[in-house]
């Protein structure tokens, strides 16, 4: 397929891999974190780790939007979904995420009207077509999905659709990266920066990572060659003693980002004082809520949600996995008590989650790793 196969060429991969082998210091071990769940998915789907030299380790960061939603928020979502007259709309991979009291899929089986949508505009259409129902959109995701929620709100406002509500759970990537950088267990050499998020926010917001923390970051696309080339660009910076923000995904990402998308976000949403991230705890100014002017569309104002904080299960080590302190399979419950069928932590739920990616795609290479170590 054109525009896809070019970015998956095994021959080019081999050449990049040889170039990487040529610039790494003998005996040194490198840990690079891909922040974004989309990259984790690409890495496992295509077997990128098999192509990298064994000295280069990829650590899977906190950028899986489904993984970072705390269980209490899932319970709140279910409470809204189970109200009479509510049509609760959500992206597909949020359906199976367990809260303290089951998942949306189970709520649906119990009778809640839960519908899968591909875009918040689909949810708005359901609202337009069903004026006697209250249609709620479960808004989750980083800056990648936030603009579409913002535009949908603007449209709901301009069309005067009053039976549409947004349950806002949008999070922002920079505070999460800051939290990881501030973690005392941190042992990372550089970051593969998120591609879709950067399409919106541009490359400037990452500069502090190079300046204050001395770590290189390269924004990368989502094809396996993108990831491989980004790894090469980080390792080249390290070899040359540089530390910068670079852009591998130039075919999409601009330095200033997408200003119209940023304007739409700023018009409709504002930062929350604090927000809980699964595994990482509360991070200040890390999530968005609707502005007061959009209060008529705010599900949190429309409904009394339980708002009960559910502590992560004790056995769950999602936080350490998200920070790259342990590999997924080093978690005490990985693959035994916690499986994609019965996830304890959300890292096991979405195919972008580090644990599910390991479980589904990586069991064999992990076997080789354990034999080797």
């Amino acid at each position, binding site marked *: 397929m054109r525009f896809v196969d070019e970015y998956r060429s095994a021959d080019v991969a081999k050449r990049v891999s040889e170039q990487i082998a040529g610039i790494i210091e003998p005996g040194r071990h490198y840990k690079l974190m891909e922040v974004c769940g989309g990259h984790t998915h690409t890495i496992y789907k295509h077997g990128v780790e098999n192509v990298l030299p064994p000295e280069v380790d990829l650590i899977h960061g906190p950028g899986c939007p489904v993984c970072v939603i705390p269980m209490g928020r899932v319970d709140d979502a279910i409470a809204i979904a189970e109200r009479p007259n509510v049509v609760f709309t959500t992206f597909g991979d949020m359906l*199976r995420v367990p809260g303290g009291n089951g998942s949306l899929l189970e709520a649906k089986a119990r009778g809640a009207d839960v519908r899968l949508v591909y875009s918040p505009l689909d949810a708005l259409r359901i609202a337009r077509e069903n004026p006697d129902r209250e249609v709620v959109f479960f808004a989750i995701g980083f800056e990648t999905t936030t603009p579409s929620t913002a535009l949908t709100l603007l449209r709901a406002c301009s069309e005067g659709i009053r039976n549409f509500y947004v349950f806002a759970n949008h999070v922002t990537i920079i505070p999460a990266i800051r939290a990881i950088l501030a973690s005392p267990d941190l042992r990372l050499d550089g970051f593969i920066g998120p591609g879709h998020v950067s399409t919106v926010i541009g490359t400037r917001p990452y500069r502090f990572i190079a300046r204050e923390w001395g770590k290189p970051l390269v924004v990368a696309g989502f094809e396996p060659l993108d990831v491989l080339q980004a790894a090469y660009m980080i390792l080249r910076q390290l070899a040359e003693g540089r530390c910068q923000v670079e852009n591998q995904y130039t075919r999409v990402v601009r330095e200033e980002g997408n200003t119209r998308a940023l304007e739409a976000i700023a018009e409709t949403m504002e930062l929350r004082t604090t927000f809980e991230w699964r595994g990482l705890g509360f991070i200040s100014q890390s999530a968005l809520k609707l502005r007061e002017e959009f209060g008529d569309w705010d599900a949190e104002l429309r409904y009394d949600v339980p708002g009960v904080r559910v502590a992560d299960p004790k056995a769950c080590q999602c936080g350490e996995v998200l920070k790259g302190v342990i590999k997924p399979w080093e978690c005490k419950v990985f693959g035994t008590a916690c499986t994609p069928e019965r996830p304890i932590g959300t890292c096991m739920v979405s195919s972008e989650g580090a644990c599910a990616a390991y479980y589904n795609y990586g069991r*064999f290479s992990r*076997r080789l790793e354990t034999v080797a170590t």
Partner: protein
Amino acid sequence: MLAAVERRRRLKPKLRDEIVTLAHGAGGKSSHVLVEALFLEELGNPLLAPLADAAVFSQNGTRLALTTDSYVVKPLFFPGGDIGELAVNGTVNDLAMMGARPLYLTAGFIVEEGFPTVELRRIAASMGAAARAAGVAIVAGDTKVVEREKGDGVYINTAGVGVLERDLELSPALVRPGDKILVSGTLGDHGMAVMVARGSLELEVSLESDTAPLNGLVDGLLGATDGVRCLRDLTRGGLATVLNEVALAADVGIVIEEARLPVRAEVNGACEILGIDPLYVANEGKLMAVVAPGAADVAQAALASHELGRDACIVGEIRDEPPGLVLLETAFGGRRVVDMLVGDPLPRIC
């Protein structure tokens, strides 16, 4: 640690869900748990136990195959077919996968109050045409009507009986390391055609379901070589699910090569957009064959000589390691496990 994960995976499944969810009907792990830990426990007998496409038994010296399947597809009419054609072909194919010649089918209709008779006639006519094309007759039937909103228009159940005229056994338990794996054509056509026909994606691609009776194709294959060990049609759950079932049943490893998998560009494109893997997408007119190493080329030629097997190709082979796992050599030069899905393939957020 790894041993613990593997042991866990091989444990007899336990049904821990208190209610049935859609995941139990999607053909993946949840479906398996429901069937093995509930139905097999309550209904188990030696003929049911292999959980094959059809049960095979002897009566007065004649070997017969018996199967049943229910059809709940939405929309009822989709590019390339409809629920009626699907209901005939699906049951014909389940019989063909055991090496049987399909003879007679039954049809049960559960119709929703308010359903237009003109559409019901269209479905019945399409079943008649499909039955004639497959060389079977629908010889018994039943009709029930349920209240409005208690069904999606119409559900159909078909059962079928066939006769095994060749002295052969086809079973995943018979596959051996070194055997080759063939598929009869492009993967994922039916599943993506139906997903696109639901209209919620607003994708403009022309995709048609591949629904077709495979008994003629199978007859040609079995006539060409006696090296066929196992046949499976690649319905719900796709090639990935079938390969996992074979790997577990035979306790063998399976390696397939991504570069050899036949997938239409349109299907690939739609899958890329949705973040769905065509390996898990349903087919209704494709089969997988495991054949002895020496018979692979003959088998491929036999499949390719039939109209429904034009794109047949060898996609991988059986290995002794790692037992119970399916591995994919990616076109990128990496390697990964292809596991069974838990439920339906869900579109990814980004």
